[in-house]
């Protein structure tokens, strides 16, 4: 490969990596709150698809993409409250509650889409968020196409990395979240309402996941499809765990996964002689390898997946 081609290849790879890791990063950031507060929400996949649909419907009927984003966030919030109710109020097993949420979410989204749009010859489409071009910054060689040629949701997601870090480390709310996940009884004795904080965290997780869903339908693509989340919610849950509940590391983990995915596609395209299934499996293999590398240090929030009740000893 000539030098020039090599640079082009890397630019395309990195720009693609950023784009494709956003729908993993967004729900992962939300799940950092949720998991930090002690709740494992395996229903992210379901929430994301609900978000994707709501985002699209909102944007389609109002013509406003931002209204679409708003509807996705609200829908994600509302839908995640089911998880909150099951895991916090009912104190149900979180694995089954999350599974139920995924089944319900994927079916409900598919059902509502058909109800709203009927059967069409061609799918309804909208104009999705365009790439921003900060004062022509995207024209800067190399750096431009990698960093300055994305749509606004990408930058929003990157901002949310910082924002999530800030909330968790610098605000009273973040401190409460950590306390609730580690030692709910202590939090309770300090006057923190454990259930409320957990509800809020589940809801925030839902909002971020909803946003992640909207990114897929109106940020990345321009329409809704039943299978457009394609396991990204589950990947997000993994990313959260192996980034050890740290937003910055979550960004790297999402980039890593996204990068592996883009890399396999680029390698396929340029005709690397490896069966494509092996390349397709690459991101997942990489995830396990990284997980094994970092796990020794992983200490789960002490109250992870354990419901809290003041009266039980």
């Amino acid at each position, binding site marked *: 490969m000539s030098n020039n*081609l090599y640079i*082009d*290849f890397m*630019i*395309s*790879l990195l*720009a*693609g990596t950023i*784009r*494709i890791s956003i*729908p993993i990063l967004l729900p992962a950031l939300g799940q950092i709150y949720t998991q930090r507060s002690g709740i494992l929400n395996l229903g992210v996949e379901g929430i994301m698809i609900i978000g994707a649909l709501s985002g699209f419907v909102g944007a389609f009927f109002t013509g406003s993409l931002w209204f679409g984003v708003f509807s996705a966030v609200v829908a994600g919030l509302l839908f995640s409250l089911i998880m909150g109710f099951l895991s916090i109020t009912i104190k149900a097993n979180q694995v089954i509650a999350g599974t139920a949420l995924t089944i319900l979410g994927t079916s409900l989204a598919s059902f509502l889409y058909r109800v709203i749009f009927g*059967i*069409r*010859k*061609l*799918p309804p*489409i909208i104009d*999705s968020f365009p*790439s921003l071009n900060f004062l022509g910054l995207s024209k800067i060689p190399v750096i431009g*196409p990698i960093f300055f040629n994305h749509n606004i949701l990408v930058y929003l997601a990157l901002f949310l990395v910082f924002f999530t870090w800030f909330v968790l480390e610098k605000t009273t709310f973040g401190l409460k979240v950590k306390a609730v996940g580690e030692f709910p009884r202590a939090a309770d004795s300090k006057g923190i309402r454990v259930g409320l904080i957990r509800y809020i965290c589940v809801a925030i997780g839902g909002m971020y996941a909803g946003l992640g869903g909207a990114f*897929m339908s109106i940020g*990345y*693509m*321009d*329409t809704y*499809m*039943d*299978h*457009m989340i*394609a396991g990204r919610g589950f990947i997000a849950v993994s990313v959260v765990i192996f980034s050890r509940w740290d937003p910055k590391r979550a960004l790297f983990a999402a980039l890593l996964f996204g990068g592996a*995915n*883009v890399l396999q*596609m*680029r390698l*396929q*395209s*340029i*005709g690397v002689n490896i069966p*494509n*299934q092996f390349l*397709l499996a690459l991101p997942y293999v990489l995830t396990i390898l990284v997980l094994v590398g970092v796990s020794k240090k992983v200490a789960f929030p002490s109250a992870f997946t354990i419901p809290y009740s003041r009266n039980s000893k």
Partner: protein
Amino acid sequence: GAQEDNSDSRLKVALILPGKIDDVSWNQAMYDGMKTVEEMYADKIAVTYVEEVYEVADIEPAIRDFAAEGFDLIFGHGFQFMEPIIKVAEDFPDTCFALGTGFKTGKNTAVYDVTLGEGGYLMGILAGLLTETNKIGVVGGADVSEIYRGHEAYKMAAKSVNPKIQIQELYTGDWRDAATAKDGATGMYDSGVDIIWHSGDGIGLGVVNAAKTENKLAMGNVVDQNVLAPNNIISGIQYNWAPVIKNIIDDIINDNFMNRDDKYYWLTVANEGVQVTPFHSFESQISDEVVKTLQDAVTGISNGTIEVPHFQK
């Protein structure tokens, strides 16, 4: 719904689809074809549609159920229906079965198939002639036989008209994750590819979308996808299943089905089941030379002077 009425003399037809009837692809083309025939033969047939019979284990009960309910003709739209249909057909010798691709037939079982190779060939000619960078691409879902045939013919044809051509090829490993396909296509465009054909299914929308955001050219599949991106979808191929369906139904009505020797119904360029879609707004930009070469290829394939090999892995 199914007609319970005994006095109804119409042929009871069931169409079992593995995906959604509005997937802008494989399933939708068949659905549309069947709808056309149903309207045409409103007094002769009554059709029941079932979508998303995706799990292989659920196929046989579905077929058996329709057979047991007294349906006269059952379509299974995919090769995964082959084994179950052969098995059920033995138990219901009076029922007719039609299998969408595959290779096993029986007294009451026929195969209908599309010569995607011919379609791919035509697309390859177009891409080879239209490219300015001498780099073209093709994106497919899973690497299965009919898709493979299309891709191989595409590559062969492109090389035949443009010896300098470089071709990038990608399988996303999935029929429905359009976002991944979009990123794959984006990567191709980034590396200098200026025209991509996609070989169908939900992922095709990702390629169309990539063309739109990158403002490059793409070619559609299955249905005329120009409206999705009028400035980017230069052409494509579309299937018209109606003639083949009509053919099968006529055979049954005329008692020709069971004793027919050739149990293959082909959708071909020759019988206009596979067509090149119009150029729409690109009409004026396409040189007469290109139009002529394409037309020659169509004629050649139709009258057998050009023989597209039956590629096999």
